[in-house]
């Protein structure tokens, strides 16, 4: 018998049963993260059927998707958008009614759901974690099986603490060697998606392996796993190791001394056996990854910073050609033009992909002593109140504000533009977020995804480069 992958091990440990009629598996959920946008209909479903939340203590709520990024201390009254305020009020009512822990807007522990879980130590190796947000894959950085679900599934998890699902296939992403100086986890993730495509991981759980992955910090690992979904995968995983344990020690919800030893002993069993069977393997040489940016309207439309955008005239496949033409048109880029030197009007440093302290430090290093170009409006939105406080303790807020960046309060902000932070039509943005879809950051807005370092550089110089 061949060995098990890490995914197989977590799956087997959480399998409650397999439904004989449907063939669906019932998987137990260790942590259910919720936020205001994808839950109101789930709670009303519970109410309509007189159902309770089965394990409120395994659920954690934050307010992040449509919170404004200023004046949060004013609470709900400070939210000017009525619909957003209603959603936030509904969440506040629902968590109170069901006894769910909640970090409301203005609480220093509040922030983007995928920043908060790890920061609080709620995210732990070997867990199953779900949330009504596709970037739940972020938590896979700890060796937890974590993925996004829809609102009907949110309701199912609230009522039963289980998820009906089917097993995915195993995919190994082997990144050998080392990333070069100045190349980050974001560059690696974008490079990988440009290689496999946005549907490349469909039906699979990806495990990131190899020396270049092991060398990443926890925060870099979170950035990498965060983008698994953009490669179509259900989830991303990295086996826990010393880096993981070091990061977790002392976090508020991490196991305390006494319980820690047993937990760590268990976590050390969480790796893919050497003889595990992979359905698919993708190999990447760490040295081959360059600083990478997207040029188009899909995360797979990424090229090295030194590269040129494609020229449809050289593409034979009609479907591919049509997609490239549409993206170039939307992005207002000339066929075959170098990406470097493209002027931007906006810069967004934030989102669950790149809003943690290391990201802010990397951006501040570029901003130190420099000035944001006159033609650019640049924003820094920390991932949580605690990240913001840490950055302020290190004086990073001063570095940013003195350079002309706006220093905002935490939330999803311009990652999806549900709050007032959006692009105007035709505006071009250097963004550290995860999606460059048409209209994602505002109708007609043009998004180029990149690392915090490159985004900060674009803010200073006014161009991608």
């Amino acid at each position, binding site marked *: 018998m061949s060995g098990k992958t890490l995914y197989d091990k977590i799956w087997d440990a959480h399998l*409650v*049963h397999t*439904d004989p*009629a449907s*063939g*669906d598996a*019932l998987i*137990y959920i*260790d942590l259910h993260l919720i936020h205001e*946008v*994808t839950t*109101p*209909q789930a709670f009303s479903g519970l109410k309509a*059927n007189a*159902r309770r939340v089965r394990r409120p*203590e*395994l659920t954690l709520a934050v307010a992040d*998707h449509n919170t404004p990024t200023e004046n949060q201390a004013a609470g709900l009254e400070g939210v000017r*958008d009525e619909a957003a305020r*209603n*959603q936030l009020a509904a969440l506040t009512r629902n968590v109170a009614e069901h*006894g769910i822990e909640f970090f409301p807007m203005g609480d220093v522990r509040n922030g983007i759901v995928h920043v908060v879980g790890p920061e609080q130590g709620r995210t732990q190796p070997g867990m199953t974690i779900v949330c*009504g947000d*596709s970037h739940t894959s972020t938590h896979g950085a700890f060796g937890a099986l974590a993925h*996004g*679900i*829809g*609102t*009907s*599934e949110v*309701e*199912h998890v609230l*009522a*039963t603490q289980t998820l*009906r*699902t*089917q097993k995915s296939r195993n995919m190994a992403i082997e990144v050998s060697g080392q990333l070069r100086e100045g190349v980050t986890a974001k560059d690696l993730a974008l490079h990988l998606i440009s290689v496999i495509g*946005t*549907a490349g991981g469909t*039906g699979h759980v990806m495990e990131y392996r190899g020396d270049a992955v092991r060398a990443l910090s926890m925060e870099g690992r979170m950035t990498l796993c965060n983008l698994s979904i953009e490669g*179509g995968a259900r989830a991303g995983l990295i086996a826990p190791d010393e880096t993981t344990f070091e990061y977790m020690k002392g976090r508020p*919800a991490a196991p305390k001394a006494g*319980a*820690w030893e*047993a*937990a760590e002993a268990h976590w050390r069993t969480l790796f893919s056996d050497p003889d595990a069977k992979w359905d698919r393997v993708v190999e990447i040489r760490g040295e081959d990854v360059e600083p990478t940016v997207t040029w188009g309207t899909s995360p797979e439309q990424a090229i090295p910073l030194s590269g040129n955008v494609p020229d449809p005239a050289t593409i034979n496949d*009609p*479907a591919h050609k*049509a*997609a490239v033409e*549409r993206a170039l048109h939307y992005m207002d880029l000339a066929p075959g033009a170098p990406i470097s030197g493209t002027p931007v009007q906006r810069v967004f440093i934030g989102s669950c992909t790149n809003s943690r302290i290391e990201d802010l430090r990397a951006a501040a290093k570029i901003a130190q002593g420099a000035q944001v170009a006159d033609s650019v409006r640049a924003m820094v939105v920390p991932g949580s109140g605690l990240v913001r406080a840490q950055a302020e303790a290190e004086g990073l807020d001063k570095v940013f504000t003195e350079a002309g960046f706006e220093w905002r309060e935490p939330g999803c902000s311009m990652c*999806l*533009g549900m709050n007032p932070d959006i692009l105007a*039509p035709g505006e071009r943005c250097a963004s550290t977020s995860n*999606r460059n*879809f*048409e*209209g994602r950051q505002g*109708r*007609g807005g043009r998004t180029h995804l990149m690392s915090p370092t490159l985004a900060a550089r674009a803010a200073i110089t006014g161009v991608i480069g």
Partner: protein
Amino acid sequence: MKAFTTLTSTAAALTHKGRLMANVDTDMIIPKQFLKTTEREGLSRGLFFELKTKADGSPDPDFVLNQPAHQGAGILIAGDNFGCGSSREHAPWALLDQGITCVIAPSFADIFHNNCFKNGILPIALPAEVCEALAEQTGGANHRFTVDLEAQTVTTPEGATIQFNIDPGRKQSLLEGLDDIGQTLQAGETIDAFEARRAHETPWLQRRAS
């Protein structure tokens, strides 16, 4: 959830320059400004909002669902990787509100695909060339297709029958319109047993209820 058994309806194809659009993402299906609702109904207003409205807010007559021949189309045909992007269930809710209960595409993104089955929408995966051929037959107001889930067939307006595959469990729950939660709660004892074992084997995962 409403059951899905058979559907006879016109179809609308999402095309760009004569080819089915690939990677139609959930931001495109329903943009963020429509996600601030606490209801499931009324979302057709936002369905394909940026494709169906011009910048000045008026309807774009070129968009397929604005054309008279496609009013009331219950079937949508699109390109590869339909529904990629966010987990928002507002996407299937908006389709449902529009009266679309079947989507045909070469492939679907994972979460969207799941969400369809929770809402009585049948996603049918067929080879790209078959989807393109079906799209070509969506032309007139009387070009009706029939989808038969039990038989797993799509019948074209010209009368050709195409077979599709579907997971048997999912087929059953769509046919019966089953309530997932109700079913799972019937297995309550197995969940209790699992929780007892979990408390014993991974005690650090226990948390006190507040």
